[in-house]
Structures are given as structure tokens and as C-alpha cells.
């Protein structure tokens, strides 16, 4: 990514020095150069993503152990999930990852506003696919709620295929997809922020750190779903 920064590589002197050279408006004073600032932010984002993986990791391990403990209940539970809806959502997120990459590409090549339109369009598309994901999720959730397939003590399903401990599967289903859903909502908020700032023309090849970082975050949200989908919907 460093080639994108050559325009603003300026040596930033100490405090009190007289620096008459040009100073990027988003350059924070404690970084010597814009490149240093970008690299630091990127390290910070990767570390944050590592914490996210470990946060979900706890749920994945718990799921694995409970699945081996109650395998019949988990298989019976997963028959109540609609794999077609899950597959549709997988497509939504995969396409949104592509549009996000396009947005990052547009921002990093945005000189004198020549990629401004591509940037905003792709961010809007990403937001749209994320919204589509949540709509599908809404229909899935309301179907489960209607059938009483709920986590823990709220579970009151009484169908013919009821298996003991089936509620544990739905505890994990709702916790995992719920936590993931909150991440999608958070991502939608962040993308909205990007759209507002893009419209102001803040992101150019000299400075597009937020687009890059939120892009990374968005890929992780997609990636977690890529694991959740087969784990929850396609077990046998």
C-alpha cells in the first residue's frame, strides 16, 4: 500500500520547529509521516481482528464440544434451518466483500476526485448487500421464534422430531448468528460513516485509511459467516 503515500511523505520535525512544508489535514501530530500513521492504524486493525477471531473462537469451541456431546440433538436442530436462506446470505456477503474491495481500490486511486463516483457507488452497494443480509436474517429469526425454537429456557418447541437438549443447538445458533449480526450492524454503521465522509471528498490516494481499515473489518465479518454457514446449516 505504501506506493499510494508518496505524495505526502514529509518529514515532520519536533514540536516548536518551524515547519512550513505542506501538512495533510488528517495527519495527526504524533506521527512523523502519513505512511507511519497508516501503518500504525493498520497494525491496530489487524490486532483488533485477532481479538474478534478469539471472541468468536470461544463460541466455536463451545459449539464443537456441545455438538460432540449432543450430536443427535444438533443434527435434529439443524434440520430446522433453511439452507437456501443461509446460502442466499452467503452470496450477499461474498458480493459485498467484492464491492468493498472495489471501494478500497477506488479510494486508494482517487486523485483529484476521478474515482469519487466508483468509491461512493461501491460503498452504497456494500451497505445494500449488508442490509439484504439482515432482512433475510429477520425472516429466518421470526420463523424460529414462531416455532418456539429459541435459546435456553425460552425453548418451547413441541414438534414430532423433538430431541432432548435440542435447545442447546438453538442457544448456540442464536448466540453465534446474533453476535455475527451485531457485527454486521456495526459494519453497516461504519460503512454509512464512510459514505458520509466520501461524499465530503475526504478520501483520496493520500489518505484513505478508514476505508482500508473498515474494509478489513468487513472481510472478517464475511469470513466468520463463511465458517458459520456450513457449521450451523450443513452439518450431518
Amino acid at each position, binding site marked *: 500500500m505504501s506506493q499510494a503515500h508518496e505524495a505526502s511523505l514529509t518529514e515532520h520535525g519536533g*514540536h516548536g520547529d518551524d515547519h512550513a512544508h505542506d501538512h495533510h489535514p488528517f495527519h495527526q501530530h504524533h506521527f512523523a509521516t502519513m505512511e507511519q500513521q497508516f501503518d500504525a492504524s493498520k497494525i491496530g486493525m489487524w490486532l483488533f481482528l*485477532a*481479538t*474478534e477471531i478469539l471472541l468468536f473462537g470461544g*463460541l466455536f469451541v463451545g459449539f464443537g*464440544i456441545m455438538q460432540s456431546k449432543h450430536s443427535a440433538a444438533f443434527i435434529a436442530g439443524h434440520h430446522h434451518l433453511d439452507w437456501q436462506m443461509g446460502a442466499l446470505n452467503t452470496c450477499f456477503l461474498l458480493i459485498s466483500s467484492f464491492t468493498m474491495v472495489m471501494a478500497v481500490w477506488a479510494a486508494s486511486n482517487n486523485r483529484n476526485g476521478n474515482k469519487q463516483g466508483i468509491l461512493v457507488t461501491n460503498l452504497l452497494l456494500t451497505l445494500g448487500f449488508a442490509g439484504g443480509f439482515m432482512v433475510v436474517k429477520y425472516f429466518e429469526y421470526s420463523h424460529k421464534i414462531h416455532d418456539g425454537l429459541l435459546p*435456553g429456557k425460552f425453548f418451547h418447541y413441541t414438534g414430532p422430531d423433538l430431541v432432548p437438549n435440542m435447545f442447546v443447538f438453538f*442457544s448456540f445458533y442464536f448466540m453465534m448468528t446474533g453476535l455475527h449480526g451485531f457485527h454486521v450492524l456495526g459494519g453497516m454503521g461504519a460503512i454509512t460513516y464512510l459514505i458520509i465522509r466520501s461524499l465530503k471528498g475526504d478520501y483520496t490516494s493520500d489518505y484513505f485509511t478508514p476505508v482500508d481499515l473498515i474494509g478489513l473489518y468487513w472481510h472478517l465479518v464475511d469470513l466468520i459467516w463463511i465458517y458459520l454457514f456450513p457449521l450451523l446449516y450443513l452439518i450431518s
Partner: protein
Amino acid sequence: MADVIASPAVHTADHGHHADYLSDPEHKGIWSWMNTVDHKRLGVMYLWCVLAAFFVGGLFALLVRLELMHPGEDFMNAEQYNQAFTLHGAIMVFLFIIPSIPAALGNFILPLMLGAKDVAFPRLNLASFWVYVTGAIMAVTSIVVGGVDTGWTFYTPYSTSTGGAVTMMTMSVFVLGFSSIFTGINFVATVHKLRAPGMGWFQLPLFVWGIYATAIIQVLATPVLGITMVLLVMERAFNIGIFDAQIGGDPVLFQHFFWFYSHPAVYIMILPGMAIISEIIPTFSRRTIFGYRLIALSSVAIALIGFLVWGHHMFTSGESALAASIFSFLTFLVAIPSGIKVFNWIATMYKASISLDTPMLYATSFLLLFGIGGLTGIFLGALSVDIHLHDTYFVVAHFHYVMMGGTVIAFLGGLHYWWPKMFGRMYNESVGKIACGLVFIGFNMTFLTQFFMGSQGMPRRYYTYLDQFQPLHQFSTFGSWVLGAGLMIAAVNLMGALRGPKNAPANPWGGTTLEWQTQSPPITHNFVGQPSIEHNPYDYRNFKVPSDAV
């Protein structure tokens, strides 16, 4: 090192005196503190908070010890006693020790040592502080609204069935975890990207290495604690069926999840202590530290191996013999880097002209106490011995020797070492030494006895005991008073110094690292100009000790 000099170091003396960060006319009033992004001010605010937590946690400890003066009920019944030791443990671990050295001293010193103007993400640092305050308020609330009696480990199934404010307390731990993660992310990025020109990885002061290794653990372990606490709350609130055996859950799974964080968290606590000792010993020995690279890399080794030993907390909880043997082996393995550090520190002191000022007195206390704490850890890592000693006072004594004799003593040493830098004032040296002596004696009186009781079978967490243990229990309680008195004297000495004039020179101890190159207290932007590296840290052959050093 000549090839890495970027520009001549700029010393404060050449520029006259500047307004320091405490009295900067551009940043005045309470609000300028509350929304400051200055790592020094945040470090100071963290410091007051962790000291307050240390005081409250210490009061609970004194109450626990007082109740144990006699067998049977003195002034607390069993439930109240359970709450008292739970709050002591939870406050000391989550509100005091974990943030103490990294968030308070680390925040202040680490950017200075790197020659940076601030941490990489100053606003995240501010967020970390206020998230910490929020978590602390939740913890205090849980005490007020019903108390917690689970022990700081929140073991299931008791924690999912007992009453009280367990949910509030566990959510507080969840929130405090985010504060810890934010600090960790900040420090890793700062060390990677904000080093002064010419400062390579092996020119980093060892304090930075220790805090860096700590930050890695904070980032990688804390999220697992977070999700564990969420699952515990979910189990309590909605019976999701993961930890409660009555509805098909697995209580031992909670122990695995909890210790996957909490054993690495032990290294979050001790690595910063070791980091401070690595600074104090060369400074007061006036010697290049022995085995710099080994000390630096052993911090990273501890951080990595520390992730693989959590199972040694569950030797008696139904672990397979194979798993237990592997965890036991890895536990022995993790002791090696700690041993490397101790021997390197001693080798540094060998035949040096040591000046036993207060910080160095704490550092030598650390060597002895941490030595005992570390070696008794080897006993507990041995499978057959652990079956006998598990959940006895031997364990209590062991981790207090590491946590208090190690980390807290190092924290006190660090406070005395950097107090002149942080506040620009010297404390009374004689009073400081007396306080250190009392802390050392009181600590050993309190906890050495507990090794004896534990090996004779005194179980931990009981408010009453067999008559045969009474002499040792009473001796331990007397010791806790000596320890408390020593800590109070140290506090009065340090706080009292704040009322005096700013009399500290820039480099009172003759330290070689960059924080001593700026004035005491430092200016808001830390350095006048960009400092650069002229020699390796602790290189006393090429370092001229200033004439005003003590």
C-alpha cells in the same frame, strides 16, 4: 551504533525550562484532564485509580486476615467471609494488578522510552481509561447491590446457581477486559511504529520488551475471557445449557475457558513486574545488563508458552492423564525463561557497585520473593504433589509470592523509580527504605506461614479452621498489619512529596534510557525535538552519568 544516529540528541538543558505536562497553561482545569489524550496524564489518572483499587482490595484482605485470628465466627459469618475474599480477589486482579503496571506506569513511561510524542492511538487510550472507570463502577455496584461470593474465578456450577450480583460482577469483568485490550493494541502498535529513529528492536529498553510481551497476551487472551463471561451470564439468565450439568452442560468447560485467559493473565501480571526490575537493576548497579537479548526474548517466550499451560489449574478436575502430563511438562518449561531472567539480573549485579536506594531495595526484595514464588510454582506443577497441595494455603502462599512479592513489589519499586520523573519531586529516601523494609518483613510474616499451613492441609477459602493452625494464622494476621503499615508509610511518603517543590533533576538515578533525557516532569510533547539513540540502553561505558544524580 554509530550508523543509526539520526540527529544529535536534544537535551532540555540546552533549551531552558519548559512548562511541564502538569502545569501546561494550554491545558488547564478538570475538563482538560478528563478528555486528555496525553499518555502521561492518562497514566497518572490510571495510577490514582489503581491505587484506590489497591487500597480497597487491601482493606478486604485485612478484614479476611482479621476474621482468621480465631477459629469459628469472629465478626463475619461464612457468607460474609466468602464475599470478602471474593471482592479482595476480584478487585486486586481485575482492577489493580492487571492495569497497574501497563496502564499506569506503562502509559507514562513507554512512549518516553521510545522517544515518541504519544502512543499510537491517543483517543483509544482515553477510551480505555473511561471503559476502565465504567467497569470499576459496575464492580463497586455489584458489591453494593448484593455482593459476590463465588471467588474471583466464578467457577460453575456454583456461580450459575448462587444469588447475589454475580451477573453484574461478571459483566464488569467483561467491560474491564475491553479496557485491557485497548491498552494492549495501543502498545503493540506503538512499539512497532513509534520508535525513535535508530532504535531497532534490540535497542529497546527491556521495560518496553516486557510491556510488549504483556500487550500481546492482553490482545490474544482477553477476548476469550470476554466471551466466557458472556456465556456465564447467558447461562445464569437464560439456561442456555453450556456450563450447567443439570441441563446437559459441562462445568469443567468453564474452567478451561476461564484459565485459557486467566493463566496467560498471570503473565499479564508478572511480565510488567519483570520489565521494571530489568530497568532498576542495571541503573542502580551502573552496569550494562547481562544477557540483554535473552532477557528480551524470554519475555516473548513466557508470553507464548504461557498460552499452553492453563490445564495445570485442573489437575484435580477430571483431566485425562495424558493431558495432565503434557500440561505439567509445559508448566516446567515456562519456568525456564523466568529462571533465565533471574540469573541474568543476578549476573548484572555481580561485582557491581550497587547503590541500595529505595527502588533497588524493592528490586532485591523482588529477586528473593519472586524466587520463592516461582520455585513453589514448580512444586504445584508436579502432578503428584499438586494432588496433595491443590486448594490449600500452599497455593494461596505461592500466588501471593508471585503476585504480591513479585508484581506488587516491582510496582512499588517502579513507582519509587519513576516518581521523580512523573511528578518532578523527590521523596524522603530514608522513609522510603523503612517502608520497603516493613513491606518485606510484613509480607514474609503473612505468607511464609501459609506455606506451612498449606502443606499441613489447611484448605483455602474457609472462614474457620482446626485449632492446630491458630498460632500460624495469628502470626500471619500480625504480619498483614506490618505489611499494611509499610504500605501506608510508603503512600504517605510518596504523596507527601507532591506537596514539596519540584526539585527532581532530569535524571536523578543516572538512568540510560530516553525518559531520563527530558526534564522532570516532562513537557506536554515529551521531548524538545526528536531524540535519537546514541548508545544501546544500559551501556554505561559510553554513558556519562549526570553530576546531579543521587
